[in-house]
């Protein structure tokens, strides 16, 4: 995750050194700018391009280095750069975590211009981390049990996931999500930049405070500290740019290869563990400073 909010009582690990840390409270701030020649500090909100957790050729031969170079190096980078340009225009969207920014700019279905870029930055970070070299195959233990419980069988889950990916017309994404309240997994598909976070109407402010403390305990997972109704567990990019170089029009082959060789059930496991940990802990009762 490429942005984070630092509170006065916790700290945050950052994996992308191009991010500037901002101090802020978890409320919508009026940004103070020091202008003029007194050498005042011009603080900006911006997000960084996080690298995938493996080298660009690590997913060969299933997803080529060339694809990673263009998909991550051009498309994903483009979303980050364009988001930063948009945010540089004024400061009304400063002070948000990425999840908050997505929800704020989704604007209940009447998206602001920043939404597409913000959501696509999140979506691509999430996607790279949904894959690993030597991925695919079967999940283990808790994840497999949950899948079997909620889909009947792993085969049935594969079928549902594949069908959703094949029938997402135009550009979009397919997700395995955990419905937190019902505690069940589901497959959903979204169009263009939309992701399951926008269907959540819980305000995350108070909870973000907690999770900034949890970041110490779960340093790899600072991206997913979210009180979402639909917690994303795995995603697959079905925009044509994600498979055209390697598979051209054969989206079915791409989906199959993703499931057989790329999907990271390890990532799924840690995301589920965190989502369930939150579910089990319930909403914490913490006074805000």
């Amino acid at each position, binding site marked *: 995750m490429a942005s984070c909010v630092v509170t006065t009582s916790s700290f945050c690990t950052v994996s992308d050194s191009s991010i500037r840390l901002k101090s802020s409270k978890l409320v919508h701030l009026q940004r103070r700018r020091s202008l003029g020649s007194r050498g005042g500090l011009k603080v900006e909100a911006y997000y960084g391009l996080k690298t995938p957790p493996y080298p660009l050729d690590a997913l060969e031969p299933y997803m080529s280095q060339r694809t990673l170079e263009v998909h991550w190096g051009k498309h994903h980078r483009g979303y980050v750069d364009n988001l930063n340009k948009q945010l540089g225009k004024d400061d009304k969207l400063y002070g948000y975590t990425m999840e908050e920014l997505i929800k704020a700019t989704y604007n209940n279905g009447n998206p602001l211009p920043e939404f597409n870029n913000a959501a696509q930055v999140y979506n691509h970070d999430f996607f790279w981390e949904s894959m690993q070299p030597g991925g695919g195959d079967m999940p283990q233990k808790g994840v497999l049990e949950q899948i079997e419980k909620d889909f009947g069988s792993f085969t049935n889950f594969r079928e549902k996931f594949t069908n959703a990916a094949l029938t997402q*017309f135009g550009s979009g994404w397919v997700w395995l999500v955990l419905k937190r309240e019902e505690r069940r997994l589901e497959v959903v598909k979204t169009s263009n930049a939309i992701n399951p976070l926008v269907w959540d109407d819980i305000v995350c402010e108070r909870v973000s405070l907690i999770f900034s403390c949890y970041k110490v305990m779960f340093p790899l997972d600072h991206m997913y500290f979210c009180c979402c109704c639909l917690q994303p567990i795995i995603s697959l990019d079905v925009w*044509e740019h994600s498979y055209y170089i390697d598979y051209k029009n054969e989206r079915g082959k791409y989906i199959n290869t993703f499931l057989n060789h790329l999907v990271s059930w390890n990532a799924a496991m840690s995301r589920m563990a965190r989502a369930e940990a939150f579910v089990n802990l319930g909403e914490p009762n913490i006074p805000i400073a």
Partner: protein
Amino acid sequence: SIIKEMAASSAVTADYVLKPPPYSLDALEPFMSRQTLEFHWGKHHRAYVDNLKKQVLGSDLEGKTLDHIILNTYNNGDLLPAFNNAAQAWNHEFFWESMKPGGGGKPSGELLALLERDFTSYEKFYDEFNAAAATQFGAGWAWLAYADNKLKVMKTPNAVNPLVLGSFPLLTIDVWEHAYYLDFQNRRPDYIKTFMNNLVSWEAVSSRLHAAKAASSSSA
């Protein structure tokens, strides 16, 4: 209705046929590669036609013309199942016929005069068309269209086209990524520029405009 007349006179065949482009698959080189045509026409367009045939077989749409299917499955945006395949079959045939070898550049005569009337200048039209094509987020199309005796630029998502929005299509550029990925990868602006400078068939646009005007006046 006037829209049905427009659709019928648009010169896109009503049969569910994969019509080849009016030039060989390598004729648009180097601006649009043969490989692109082989995949874009030979796989994507072909699949829309084949899947449409399968979809309407045995349904009450069987035997209906392509434009009938498109207009009746758009359903005010709440798309019925056959819409995507039908509209994409139509859109792609229209797209191939919007291009020609040695195409592009500035039109002349009546068409130029109308562009200058409705956009102030060809350059302004170029910029507007360019912007529409560049900013259609996700998959879709950009169009020059005709309605109420005026030319206008439109952009549509996925399979939607001006027919279902009450306008007569005159020119289109496919901005689904499959249209430019082999030749341009992520560089959609370069693809659009190349299309405008080197591929547009203004002859096709002119004859469609003629048909549009005829259809408008006969329905008036």
